[in-house]
Each structure stands twice: as structure tokens, then as C-alpha cells.
């Protein structure tokens, strides 16, 4: 089925060769609205408030794309999707873009006919311990009692990690997340392990969150990012470069607070970014100032991170591996030139 869909999409592109952009971008422009698939509610990533306003790290990516197209980040229709419903909804064109804490895997591209546009957040399995233990890294955890949820990939990852590093492990597996948190809070285990983003969310359930630290080690790969359908390369580029604009903005020092300064900058990188030199966005069916529109609406990558999941948010996740490549992390964007 996916192959047929792809073939049809390819044929569609051929039939409208003269107007190759008569595709997702054209649909979105005609509709006047971007349809963005998000989670049904995940603190920091996508959540709806009492007034019906969506916010979050994943939501800001929807807004960034809408801002690039419409110069108006509110032109988004959010479609909350369950884990099961998310990929079919994208395949069936119920959404233009999926921005829903989804892990980039080969199966999801090769088998589901989808493409991940970028890794907006590097997640992976980590460890939480009481701060009072003064542990500096996971290699010091030998002989620990480690709590995790049974039936998850965390079990195997933890076993592999401890075995590879010749450390003794007493793994306590519990059927639900709540039981895992309770066991850790009651001191039945010294360590709690699951994906780092979830560790920070679970930490909020403990009496004094600041009394617990998440160690810097990340022992598995859970690259999260926005997803589109195969068959519309220009749309893939728009989503991809909207994300790259966020990252490049941070690297260049362009933020909501420095946007005015950036507009008059003489630095070549900055001039290309704001569109005072060249017209890179126009080649994608956007405008010269596409990247400026994005930063104006949601800020740069660092601002998006801090506001939703970083130090300014409840979750309080340090930038860590998601810091820029030039500042200790691995977030990296190709240059605009």
C-alpha cells in the first residue's frame, strides 16, 4: 500500500511538473493553515492549557513551520494523536507534519513510507540517583539496585550496559511507571532508569525534585524529530530547514532579543540568515525573510529549549547532549549559503 501511495505521489509530481510545488506547501497555503500532529499531552513537549492554547517543544516546531509560511505562528491546527494513530494519520494526509516525540528508526522510514526531517531532541536512556550520593557518572553505579519498568527496552539496555562495564546489577523490574517511582522514592532502589526526558518528568513526582540528579551518561539512542510523508522533497526541505533555522540562529547569536540588530548586521552568515543577502527561502517557495519570521515567532533553538523543557521550565532538563555542537553538545545544522 505504501508503495502504491508513493508511486501515485511520484506520478502526481510528474503530472504537475510545471508546478512541482503544487503539493503539501500549496495545500497548506490554500488551506491557510498547517495541520500538525502532536501528542495528546506530554508536559514540555506538547500540551494544551485551559484556554485551549497549545505549547511545548514539539508544538514550537509546528509554529516555526507555520511562521515560515504565513508569518503567523497561530496558523496551525493541532491534531492530537495517540502513539498508534500518529503514523497512519500522516500516511493518510490527515496531517501535513508530525511533531510528536517520535523516535527516528529505519523501520519507520523504510516500511512506513515516511521521512524524519531532523533530530530536534536527542533522547536516550539515563540514570537518576539521589543528589546526596555525589555520584559523578554511571560507571560508578556498580552493585546498585536499579529500578525500571518491566517489558520496556530499558531492561535490556541496563543489563547490557552493566555487563559491558563489568558492573554488578540488581535490576528491580516493576509493571508500571508509578510503581517504579514509588519504589525509588521509598529507597527500595538506589537508581531509576528510563529515557532521560522521562526521568525529568518523573523527578517532578518526587518530594523534593532538586534532591535527585540525572547523571550525564546517555546509554541508548532515541533520536526524536519531526516526520513527513515520502514523495514531497520540497516539503521535507521546508520542515528540515525550519528546524535548521532555529539551530543556526542560536549559533549565530540571533534571538528574539537580537533580531533587530541582526537585521542590520554586516556579518555574511547573519545577512544570509535574515535575507538581507540572497533569497534562499524563495527557492523553497517561502520568502526571503523566512528564517527571521521563525525566530520572531518562537525564538532560536536555545530559547525554544529553555522555555519548554530547559531551565526556565518545570522539567528543568539541562541542554546536555542537545547543546550546540560548538558548546559541548551534538546539535548541528548545515549552513545557510
Amino acid at each position: 500500500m505504501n508503495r502504491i501511495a508513493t508511486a501515485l505521489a511520484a506520478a502526481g509530481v510528474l503530472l504537475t511538473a510545471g508546478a512541482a510545488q503544487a503539493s503539501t506547501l500549496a495545500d497548506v497555503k490554500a488551506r491557510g493553515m498547517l495541520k500538525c500532529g502532536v501528542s495528546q499531552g506530554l508536559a514540555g513537549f506538547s500540551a494544551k492549557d485551559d484556554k485551549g492554547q497549545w505549547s511545548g517543544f514539539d508544538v514550537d516546531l509546528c509554529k516555526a513551520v507555520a511562521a515560515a509560511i504565513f508569518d503567523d505562528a497561530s496558523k496551525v491546527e493541532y491534531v492530537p494523536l495517540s502513539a498508534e494513530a500518529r503514523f497512519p494519520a500522516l500516511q493518510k494526509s490527515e496531517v501535513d507534519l508530525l511533531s510528536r516525540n517520535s523516535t527516528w528508526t529505519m523501520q519507520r522510514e523504510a516500511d512506513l513510507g515516511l521521512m524524519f526531517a531532523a533530530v530536534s531532541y536527542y533522547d536516550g536512556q539515563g540514570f537518576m540517583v539521589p543528589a546526596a550520593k555525589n555520584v559523578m557518572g554511571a560507571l560508578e553505579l556498580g552493585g546498585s539496585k536499579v529500578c525500571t519498568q518491566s517489558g520496556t527496552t530499558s531492561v535490556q539496555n541496563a543489563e547490557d550496559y552493566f555487563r559491558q562495564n563489568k558492573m554488578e546489577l540488581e535490576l528491580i523490574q516493576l509493571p508500571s511507571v508509578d510503581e517504579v517511582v514509588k519504589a525509588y522514592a521509598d529507597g527500595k532502589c538506589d537508581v531509576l532508569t528510563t529515557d532521560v526526558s522521562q526521568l525529568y518528568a518523573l523527578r517532578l513526582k518526587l518530594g523534593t525534585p532538586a534532591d535527585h540528579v540525572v547523571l550525564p551518561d546517555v546509554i541508548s539512542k532515541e533520536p526524536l524529530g519531526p516526520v513527513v510523508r515520502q514523495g514531497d522533497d520540497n516539503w521535507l526541505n521546508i520542515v528540515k530547514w525550519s528546524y535548521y533555522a532555529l539551530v543556526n540562529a542560536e549559533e549565530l547569536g540571533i534571538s528574539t532579543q537580537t533580531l533587530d540588530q541582526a537585521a542590520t548586521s554586516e556579518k555574511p552568515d547573519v545577512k544570509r540568515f535574515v535575507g538581507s543577502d540572497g533569497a534562499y527561502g524563495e527557492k523553497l517557495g517561502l520568502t526571503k525573510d523566512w528564517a527571521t519570521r521563525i525566530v520572531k515567532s518562537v525564538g532560536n533553538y536555545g530559547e525554544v529549549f529553555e522555555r519548554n523543557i530547559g531551565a526556565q521550565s518545570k522539567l528543568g532538563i539541562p541542554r546536555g547532549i542537545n547543546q550546540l555542537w560548538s558548546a559541548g553538545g551534538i546539535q548541528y545544522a548545515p549552513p545557510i549559503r
Partner: protein
Amino acid sequence: MRLRLMGAGLMAAAAVAVALVLPLGTANAQMRPTAGMGNQIVDVPEKPGYVPSPGEEQLDPAFRRQPVYFRTNEPPGTIIVHTNERFLYLVLGDNRALRYGIGVGRDGFQWAGLQKVSRKAEWPDWTPPPEMIQRQPYLPRFMAGGPGNPMGAAALYLGSTVYRIHGTNMPNTIGMAISSGCFRLVNSDVQDLYNRVPVGTKVVIRQAPEL
């Protein structure tokens, strides 16, 4: 309290240097910018003789000392200061660093580069530089080391510069860019750092990109 944007306004800020007096350790705690958003300069005068309460010494979780993921080519033992993040990293190797929350001086904005720890001292004496005396004429010309001294519990002197990494008697200024001073840590953190690094330690200072 005066807030200023970093960047072009910076040199102007350095030249103007208006200092407004803040109530001791009260309102400024709420006005402290959170980590990662350090693009404001706040003028907070030194308070020689002021001894902070244990409660004040307790930092916001975001600025507390903690091991973090940190990828770098610098060898373990190197200190890397990211002024715009308001963090100081002590490289541990294996993609890890010990991260400390810092306050940075406006002077600290003006330079980036490589230095070495040339000297270490516990509870150092304080001799405010002339430009500080000019701004805050009521400051003492000399103050012996000890609690209440703005230099705090320890200082790491950077090369032959006037800059140093030191403690503070104003823990509420961690996370801020303040009108005077260098890189400041709370006393428990500067003591921890003092115990971990020897004289000769490489210190890399990094700045926000300029537009």
C-alpha cells in the same frame, strides 16, 4: 535595577556604569535570569561586609553544581567558561564535565581566549580596582580576606590579568552579569573547584557570538 541588552549596548553600558542600590538579598533573587538566557547586564554594587544566610547560599537547582554531558576536545582538568550561559565547566573526560553556575562581570564580557591559573588563594584579600572605586566611591581601598569579603572563600588568578575566578558574599548574583567582578561562584562551589584544580590549569573563556 537596570537591565541592558548585551551586544552593541555593551560598550555603552561599560562607559556609563550607573549603579543602583538593591535591597540586600531580597528582590534580586526573583530578578535573576535563569540559565541559558543570560543576555542581560544588571548593575549590582558590591556589599563588602555582608554575610549571606545559609538559605541564600542555596542556589536555584538550575545553577547548582552537577555533572553534565559535555563534548569537547579539551583534556580533562581544563576549565571552560561559557559566559553567556552563566556556566563554568570543569572537563572530566568521557564526554562529561562538572558544571558550576556562575555570575559574570561586565568586564568578563569583553574578552575570550586562553589563560592559565597562575595562583590560588583561600579567603583572599580584596583591593578593588580604580575603575570600581570610581563607580562606587564608598568601597574600601582594601579589605582583608574572610566572610563578608566579596572575593569569597577562594580565588583562582588567571594568568597575569586582573581577572579571577572567585567566591562571593552575594550568592544571589549567580546567573547574572553584574557591573563589576570577574567570574564568581558561591563559596561552597569555589571551594570545591579550588580543591579540584592545580596551579597551571588551562582556562578557556568563551563568549556569545557577535552579530
